[in-house]
């Protein structure tokens, strides 16, 4: 047995212990004259300066499912909710591979995870590290596409190489030439046209966007050519295509600090090219912005398909086309609500169900998975936050929870 540590280890340790961290210094006289508020505070009126409302941050190290009040979760009769995977810190967007791999993304963190069943055991692998806000993930024909802060990349034949993923190939770069504050993370969806759909959010709460900001756009992965799909969209981080009509539907976050109950976050249907959904001039199709809406009319803009609730923060949405749930769930939309924070009495923190008729008109909007919100006046009011939904091959529904790093599975049995 060794009784002494090697000298090199001691020297290394001592140098670490004695070295001083270089602290960032600033030159004298560099004081900025004006105070720019953090982007989430931008647009407050003076009476709101002392508001205690603030966004909530996820537990970056995750939390164990056994420490959480899972018994509070509620689903309709005949349905069951259970923990499907844990230990995926900041689990955001979900994508399903052809061979059954569930891909999970990060927004504040830098990883993309792969969850696989091997030898009867569920494993969480850290697939990719060091990415820049890799919130958007989409799987198509063997390839995993990832939308980062500034670019969209592809990883071909990914499911055969989960332990040794290939180098990223760039589909399109330069998506954030201005290094914009606020809403720089992207959702990503593969369209029925073979193009990748993504958002570029507004660079603040309520500001005049640049020409390709506050849009839903698409890029052809074969050519890298970009097109604007819809404008006036403050920030959409959930999209899907109707299984029958193939039309794009997406969720949108409305501005903050107007009031507890206005404006609503919204669900939108893209029925033609060149639609403009109003931001920053008109919100929810019928409410002019007090600043940007002056001398404008909401008639100029396209209204939403549904008002979802104020500050409720809809993230992922998917059409249900699985075979497990009752027939009336076919072509329904499930939406994961990650808010609210910007209202004094909190609401949301659930998965909602939207029922459409044959013409695409909303006929019902009701809670599906609830119980994360426990005290609407507490800080924090919730113990978990639904973030994305994913229809599995067997027809069950996965729900990601970035607050805790957990995936839940909702199943149905007659």
């Amino acid at each position: 047995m060794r009784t002494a540590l090697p000298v090199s280890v001691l020297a290394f340790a001592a140098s670490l212990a004695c070295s001083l961290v270089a602290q960032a210094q600033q030159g004298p006289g560099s004081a900025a004259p004006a105070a720019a508020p953090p982007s989430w505070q931008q647009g407050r009126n003076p009476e709101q300066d002392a508001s205690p409302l603030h966004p909530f941050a996820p537990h970056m190290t995750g939390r164990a499912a056994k420490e959480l009040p899972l018994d509070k979760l509620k689903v309709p009769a005949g349905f069951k909710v259970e923990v499907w995977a844990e230990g995926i810190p900041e689990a955001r967007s979900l994508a399903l591979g052809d061979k059954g791999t569930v891909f999970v993304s990060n927004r504040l963190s830098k990883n993309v995870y792969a969850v696989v069943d091997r030898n009867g055991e569920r494993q969480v692998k850290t697939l990719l590290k060091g990415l820049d806000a890799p919130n958007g993930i989409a799987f198509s024909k063997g390839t995993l596409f990832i939308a980062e802060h500034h670019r969209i990349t592809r990883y071909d034949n990914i499911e055969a190489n989960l332990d040794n993923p290939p180098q990223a190939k760039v589909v399109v770069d330069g998506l954030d030439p201005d290094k914009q504050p606020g809403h720089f993370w992207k959702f990503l969806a593969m369209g029925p046209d073979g193009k990748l759909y993504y958002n570029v959010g507004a660079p603040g709460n309520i500001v005049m966007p640049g020409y390709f900001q506050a849009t839903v756009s698409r890029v052809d992965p074969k050519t890298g050519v970009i097109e604007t799909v819809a404008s006036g969209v403050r920030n959409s981080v959930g999209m899907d295509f109707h299984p029958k009509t193939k039309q794009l539907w997406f969720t949108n976050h409305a501005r903050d600090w107007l009031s507890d109950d206005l404006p609503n976050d919204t669900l939108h249907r893209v029925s033609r090219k060149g639609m403009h959904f109003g931001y920053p001039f008109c919100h929810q199709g019928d409410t002019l912005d007090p600043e940007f809406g002056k001398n404008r009319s909401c008639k100029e803009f396209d209204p939403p398909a549904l008002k979802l609730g104020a500050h409720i923060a809809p993230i992922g949405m998917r059409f249900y086309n699985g075979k497990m749930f009752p027939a009336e769930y076919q072509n329904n939309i499930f939406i994961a609500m990650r808010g609210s924070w910007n209202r004094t009495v909190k609401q949301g923190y659930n998965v909602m169900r939207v029922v459409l008729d044959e013409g695409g008109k909303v006929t019902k909007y009701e809670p599906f998975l609830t119980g994360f919100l426990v005290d609407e006046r507490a800080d924090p009011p919730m113990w978990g936050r639904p973030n994305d939904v994913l229809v599995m091959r067997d027809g069950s529904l996965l729900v990601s929870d970035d607050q805790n790093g957990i995936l839940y599975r909702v199943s149905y049995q007659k």
Partner: protein
Amino acid sequence: MRSRFPNAAAATAAFLFAAAAGAADPNLCVACHGDGGNSANPEVPSISQQPAQFLSTALFMYREGYRKEAQMAPMAAKLSNAEMNELAAYFAKQAAAAPRHQTSAANLKDGPAAVQKFNCAQCHGPRLLGLQHIPRLAGQQFQYLRAQLRAFKAGKRGDLDGKMSESAQPLSDRDIEVLADYLAGLVP
């Protein structure tokens, strides 16, 4: 002249112990952060009575390279997420000691206005005791606070959502001095 890092011996011991044992032992932390996480070194932050989510997030940031610091990076490198959560829960429960720092008379007078002007309480809580992932400032070590504010302003402090970096932009050198001196003397 006082050494700039009087805990060097303790840190060395802690590092060697960590390297050998690899355990999430609070004793490793107190070597530098003081008994019960109450630091006696103006450069080293107190970790007692900090919100657990702030502590676990800080350890996560050191391990993942979002915060760069030569002492903390190797300490955090070996910790799993579960171990970070355990350490965070432990130090969140340790009572904060009354600060030894004496705020100057001038900054005692200017401090409250600066705290209000720069909206510190908006995120750090009405008594600046921290909230969720946001740290307790009241009674924190003076030089640590000053160094963090300078680094945030320079864009060199790890900051997951960029909010504190943005908030630090309007601070002058004098503002930073006032805030750090005032906050360090507040009884938590």
